[in-house]
């Protein structure tokens, strides 16, 4: 079997197997599997509102996935995407709720840029510690997540809250908003916004930096083998820091999608959003490529949103829905065994 065919077939078989086993579990628990899946798909595709909201869910996942994937490709494990995401969200809303009277062409890019810079700066410290003191970035970025959560909560409460005892900032000015009335009209008042375009452009930028640019070549080289890169005259420390900065910037822009698009404000959070952590999974399933991350985000975001519909239409409890989704992801993640399985089937067929 040729390898292109295989690389297409493996994820498809994985997804089908995931659905199959998920269905068996639903049946074993006494629920109607067909109806369950029907309501899952209806929850994504049955009307324009669901489709719009699915894309709303998918948009930040693409960016957080790109953030994790970028670090992976350059030899780093950025678990701090969640924290960088929160900082980016806050920074975007801060800029979005200030500077009244700016034109949209300036204000919106400025707010997105602020998110990118915020995310990048939040990744800077782990980068510096890794580059110069060899402190493992996993430990530092996890800690930075908690710092981000509580520092931004304080900042939102003290500096941005609308007053009157609320925990929520003002809404961002229209000039900094990603939403567009037409989208809302087309999708029955869903929160669909321009962010999906931003995310797809980010995926293009990701691909270009890593695969085409001189900077990306250095980053990949240092990521694979920093000894050889140093021998070849590259500045290893500089590249580690740069990798963290770029990864953090993607994470920050993911935050801007929520702050300027979906919610249009920042609020005090009781806990992590999970967007950054899901990014680890989308990066992994997308094999750290731009296209892979985009597709994986569509799968994840779609399942996450569509599954909300399952308890209503098929009485499958939310907990079981989570199990089914986890199974599908599990089968995709275990693509190695599926590869082996396919090899066996096909070699037997050949003989």
């Amino acid at each position, binding site marked *: 079997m040729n390898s292109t065919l295989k690389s297409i077939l493996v994820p498809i078989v994985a997804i089908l197997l995931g659905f199959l086993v998920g269905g068996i579990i639903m049946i074993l628990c006494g629920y109607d599997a067909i109806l369950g899946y029907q309501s899952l798909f209806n929850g994504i595709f049955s009307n324009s509102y669901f489709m719009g909201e699915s894309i709303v869910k998918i948009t930040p996942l693409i960016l957080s996935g790109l953030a994790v994937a970028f670090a992976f490709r350059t030899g780093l494990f950025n678990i701090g995407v969640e924290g960088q995401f929160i900082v980016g969200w806050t920074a975007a809303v801060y800029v979005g709720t200030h500077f009244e009277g700016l034109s949209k062409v300036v204000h919106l890019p400025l707010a997105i840029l602020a998110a990118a810079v915020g995310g990048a700066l939040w990744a800077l410290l782990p980068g510096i510690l890794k580059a110069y003191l060899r402190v493992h970035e996993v430990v530092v970025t996890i800690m930075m997540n908690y710092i981000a959560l509580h520092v931004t909560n304080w900042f939102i409460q003290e500096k941005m809250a609308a007053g009157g005892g609320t925990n929520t900032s003002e809404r961002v000015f229209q000039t900094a908003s990603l939403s567009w009335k037409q989208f809302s009209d087309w999708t029955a008042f869903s929160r669909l916004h321009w962010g999906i375009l931003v995310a797809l452009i980010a995926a293009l930028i990701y691909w270009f930096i890593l695969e*085409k*640019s*001189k*900077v990306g*070549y*250095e980053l*990949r*080289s240092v990521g*694979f*083998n920093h*000894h*050889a*890169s*140093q*021998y*070849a*005259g*590259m*500045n290893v420390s500089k590249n580690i820091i740069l990798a963290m900065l770029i990864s953090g910037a993607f994470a920050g822009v993911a935050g801007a999608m929520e702050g300027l698009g979906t919610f249009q404000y920042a609020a005090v959070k009781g806990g992590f959003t999970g967007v950054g952590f899901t990014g680890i999974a989308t990066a992994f399933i997308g094999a750290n490529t731009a296209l892979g991350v985009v597709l994986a985000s569509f799968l994840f975001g779609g399942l996450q949103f569509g599954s909300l519909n399952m308890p209503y239409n098929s009485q499958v409890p939310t907990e079981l829905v989570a199990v089914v989704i986890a199974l599908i992801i599990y089968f995709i993640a275990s693509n190695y065994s599926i590869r082996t399985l396919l090899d066996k089937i096909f070699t037997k067929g050949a003989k």
Partner: protein
Amino acid sequence: MEYVIEMLNIRKEFGNFVANDNITLQLKKGEIHALLGENGAGKSTLMNVLFGLYQPEAGEIRVKGKKVNISNPNVANDLGIGMVHQHFMLVPPFTVAENIILGKEPIKNTMVDIKSAIKKLKELSVSYGLDIDPNAKVSNISVGMQQRVEIIKTLYRGAEILIFDEPTAVLTPQEIVELIQIMKNLVNEGKSIIIITHKLKEIMEVSDRVTVIRKGKGIKTLVTAETNENELASLMVGREVSFKTDKIQSNPTEETLTIKNLNVKDNRGLLAVKNFSLSVRAGEIVGIAGIDGNGQSELIEALTGLRKVDSGVITINGRDTSKLKPRKITEIGLGHIPSDRHKHGLVLDFPMPENYVLQTYYKKPFNRSGILNFAEINKKAKQLAEEFDVRTPSEKALARSLSGGNQQKAIIAREVDRNPSILIASQPTRGLDVGAIEYIHHRLIEQRDKGKAVLLVSFELEEIMNVSDRIAVMYEGNIIDIVDPKMTTEQELGLLMAGKKLEPKGESAHE
């Protein structure tokens, strides 16, 4: 004649590629049988067939005269066949004893009976002269001891026939001497051994018979005592191989690299290079001989800009490079073939084209305002692969997928192509077979004849003697003497390397 193992007309194919083409190998009881062939000749494939990792397409295997079907390594183990792999299969955080019993743990009252295991290991250790410490952690012991652990592991599992896959590749000369003794002990105790290698010297020293294979075909089986290194080499390579590298008289001109009173500290902060002075002139090869750990690696790291110079001056083409960064030094005209090609020479997970431009990617024509021109990079890769005969599975194959010899050729291609005034080659032929060694020596001498300076660092005396025009012997961070290879012997060099200064005699002038 009783054979313990007979592999008759074994054929193994991978797709269209025939890795083993009707090879026959017969192992007598109590003999050390060498399996000789170049890298990629099919030695490992043949042994993996014997060990049950591959199934042959044709041919049969007999153990003690009985036809067997070795479908997996467990069957091989049960038949008393044990393999000592080149890359050890050990769990580093486990102790020696834990590693050895792994998968065959003695159980007493549902608990692993480590005490009786240790007792048994000590017996094995004494009877075969294999010095091990059962309670030491594998991550803390030397490579030589790790190998002994692998050997005991096979004995513990009751192996009668031991396969050694390139056992000396990772060992120091002292450890090789010990290993040869161990192998002789094993044979005296009634074991039979197959040793896979491409090192002729070791074959002559240790084996009783030798089977030569070339490009997947069995060429000949000889009695070691009735053959010699030259015959084996030409059988293996398929043509005459000269061990003495041919070269014309050197014609050195101006000094390209000058090192004056250099002091360099090692990782522990102790002086590893002490008040070291040496010059290398254009058109000559200076060899640095010495036992590993006498400051050679620190010296090279200082020359290439990877290690801070404590004091002293390094001049390349008239410019002081002692405080410069690696890239600057490279641009001034230094090329470097590092001793560890996997760690320092290549990015193994990069395709070959990207490896060829590792030092030049930021320059035109490969880089145009921050965007890499892959058409140019691929063109360069193609040109170098053709010029230096680097054989790759495909043009964009990962560096990882190349054989050691081809990886080294690729590094040399890259370094020589930049046309450096001084080329530093550190252990350039480690782990390579005679054909590749010959090629690399030829390329080094070619650089010299083009009027470049070459600094060769090697632990192999033969290489130093053959290739260098002058030999500087390094001992405890300093040069103990500089000698002319034509007027010295390996014995004299050996003494110098051990720190014993020779009586003054008519040696070549230096400075």
